[in-house]
């Protein structure tokens, strides 16, 4: 529990934690919090010329091109974005770590197969891959998650692989072998903990790229289907009206940035707190 105590003692990390937690609460309790339905188009949601309304008393963050309440759409959109961010990232980290660890430690034939496969995946343009898969299976939220996970697995595997090969050469690994430690023990008890800092950095940075990637997929029509909102498709729908209705891009963009920042702050603190070699040095 010393990690929790360490977090409490770092105000910046605590702010990050509270903000990130708030996002999760908002997403879960969306029907209770959102002032309107995300789909409802209001008559008074557009000007007489048919332009969206800027933030006002009735629509706190303004309205979108179809006269829907932006705040409500963002609150519901948080669900999609968080689910995609969490799962796509989680799967990519898990798969990438397993591939990288195995390839880095076992060497030989297994390594060649695994690493060539990741190279192939990384060489294939991510968007075309995504569009092909989505076109074959049909646009669904799970597909978006799998596609993003697939695209992100390669880089994670590469980084983990590089780190594992250098860790495997370290003398303490030879020392572990000498006392009779098996491969599983060496991999999961002695190498994996050393990968934590990298994984945390990748995981936190991945949140923002994942949310944006989902937005691109949605924009191309292979992601989340309208009228279902996500932060990504709100930005993309509004981007051509950036000059006349900047709030359409600004608020969802800000939400993405704020989420990424808060997760980053927590991740940073965790990385330090989980490193025993920094104990007593901060």
């Amino acid at each position, binding site marked *: 529990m010393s990690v929790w105590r360490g977090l409490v003692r770092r105000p910046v990390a605590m702010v990050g934690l509270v903000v990130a937690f708030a996002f999760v609460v908002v997403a879960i309790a969306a029907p209770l919090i959102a002032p309107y339905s995300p789909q409802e188009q209001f008559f008074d949601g557009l000007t007489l010329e048919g332009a969206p309304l800027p933030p006002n008393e009735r629509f706190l963050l303004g309205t979108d091109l179809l006269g829907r309440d932006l705040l409500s759409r963002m609150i519901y959109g948080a669900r999609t974005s968080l689910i995609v961010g969490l799962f796509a990232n989680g799967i990519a980290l898990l798969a990438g770590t397993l591939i990288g660890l195995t390839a880095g430690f076992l060497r030989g034939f297994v390594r060649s197969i695994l690493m060539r496969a990741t190279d192939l995946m990384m060489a294939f343009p991510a968007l075309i891959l995504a569009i092909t898969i989505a076109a074959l299976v049909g646009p669904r939220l799970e597909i978006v998650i799998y596609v993003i996970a697939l695209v992100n697995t390669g880089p994670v595997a590469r980084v983990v692989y590089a780190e594992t090969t250098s860790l495997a050469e370290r003398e*303490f690994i030879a020392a572990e072998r000498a006392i*009779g430690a098996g491969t599983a023990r060496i991999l999961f008890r002695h190498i994996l903990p050393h990968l934590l800092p990298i994984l945390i950095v990748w995981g936190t940075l991945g949140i923002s790229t994942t949310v944006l990637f989902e937005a691109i997929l949605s924009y191309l029509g292979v992601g989340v289907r309208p009228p279902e909102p996500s932060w990504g498709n709100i930005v993309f729908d509004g981007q051509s009206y950036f000059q006349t209705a900047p709030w359409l891009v600004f608020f969802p963009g800000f939400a993405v940035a704020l989420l990424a920042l808060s997760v980053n702050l927590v991740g940073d603190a965790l990385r330090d707190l989980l490193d*025993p070699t920094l104990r007593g040095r901060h």
Partner: protein
Amino acid sequence: MAVSASAHPTPLLKLDGLRVAFATPTGPATIVDGLSFILGAGETLCIAGESGSGKSVTALSLMGLLPKPGGRVTAGSAMFLGRDLFKLGEREMQEIRGDDIAMIFQEPMTSLNPVLSIGTQMTEGLRRHKGLGEREAETRAIAVLDSVRIPEARRRMKQFPHELSGGMRQRVMIAMAMSCDPKVLIADEPTTALDVTIQAQILELMSDLQKQTGMAIILITHDMGVVAEMADRVIVMRHGKVVEQGAVKSLFTAPQADYTRALLAAVPKFANGKNAPGETPRPEPILSVRDLIVRFDVKGGFFHRTKQRVHAVEKISFDLAPGETLALVGESGCGKSTTARAIMHLSPFAGSVKVAGKETAGLTGEALRALRRDVQMIFQDPHASLDPRMSVGDLVGEPLVIHGLANGKELADRVADLFERVGLKPDHMTRFPHEFSGGQRQRICIARALGLNPRIIIADECVSALDVSIQAQILALLKKLRAELGLSYLFISHDMAVVEQISHRVAVMYLGQIVETGPTKEVLGNPQHPYTQKLLAAVPIPDPARRGLARRRLEGEVPSPFRPANYVPQYLNYRDLGGGHLVATQ
């Protein structure tokens, strides 16, 4: 040797009240506190001390190379040719660095730029400081390389650092430092990373160059043998403060400070086998190695074919009796560590390794795990051989957990016992490796090895990374454990004085084979093989009165064990001198 050990050398560099502080999270820490000395032309001043004494920081501050930000000279002056070095700006220091004051670093491997040719690196300083043209600089560089006795100097200019051996690289470093005729040469542990025979060559080279040019040398070292060999005057430092300073003879014959006395007492003295423990009775061997061969393929090229092969160990055989210590000695690349790794099954090998009569070659899985209980290993660098992310209690308990020997309360008790056995406090179990000193960490490694009640411990250079006073303590601990538990040690070392203290028998390795083996008293007292003789002659003696005695002109380098893929090794034949003393015949 140095020209003048005279009492009144012409002052060249006058350091007065140097204080250096480093910024730490808990506030500034004083690393050097009030160091003063006067360095005369042609004089060799040794700054000796153990790790953390501030000796290297002193050198860096004189060069204006303290790590930034963090390190800062907070007080003192260094008058050099009428100027205070500490008051000069970066640009003015650049003029002095490499020209009037030059420096040699410890690690010749990392202090040369790997992507620039030797010629480029050699001429850089000459063109910068002396304003020589390309042609002139090259001519001068070749002359300097000649003067540090690098054969075929002209060809070397086009070579890159990785094409040269460690000793050659250190010569190049010295040549670079010497190229602009410095008035002061600062050498920070210049021979610590080198083998003894190479060390002797480099030290001799430095004093010869000093005789020719009359430069002053500041030699920073932890090795009292090197101090005795080189110094005119000595400053002994500890925790940033000067403990004692004086002429080398009086310091060694009548040390004033307690610390100096303790330091000198801790230095293992090599006495040509006279200090060696006698032989132990030799019943059935506990470890028996026959025709051990370890080769590594060096692959390369487009098709990943074997281009070269490293013949690391070529058919070596030896026995280790219960309670006995056998030392494997030799210089880097001779195959002694590879032998250890093969016995531990950390490297693939051919041949036979029997432990307590049972063949271990070809064992895998559970059978191999059982072997590990009987044979344990202690590595050279205790810092590198402990997982930094595990608490030391978990680390020491880990072998017991892996082998299913204890858990829960019993595990905690046994770990506490092991801690006490090696002289550590059991309350420190929850700490992490970085919170301990080097010596304590090596104790942790020993505790970890002892957990399985092994019968053999392989100690691979297990004291060479430690300060002498700590080294003495660890050796005493190893002797105590040997007596209490009847352990056998396979003790791998390059340090003859340490080997003499602890081992009953010695095997000298050269290029993957044993050239001489026998009781320690015999091999060290009456060495027969030319390589053994050369190795023993190179050992620096911590006694200035016997300076140069050890130093015969040693030439040549250990040849590389890299061979073409189709190489067929030649095996040595042995002559028996009686009493188990075997020598390879030519």
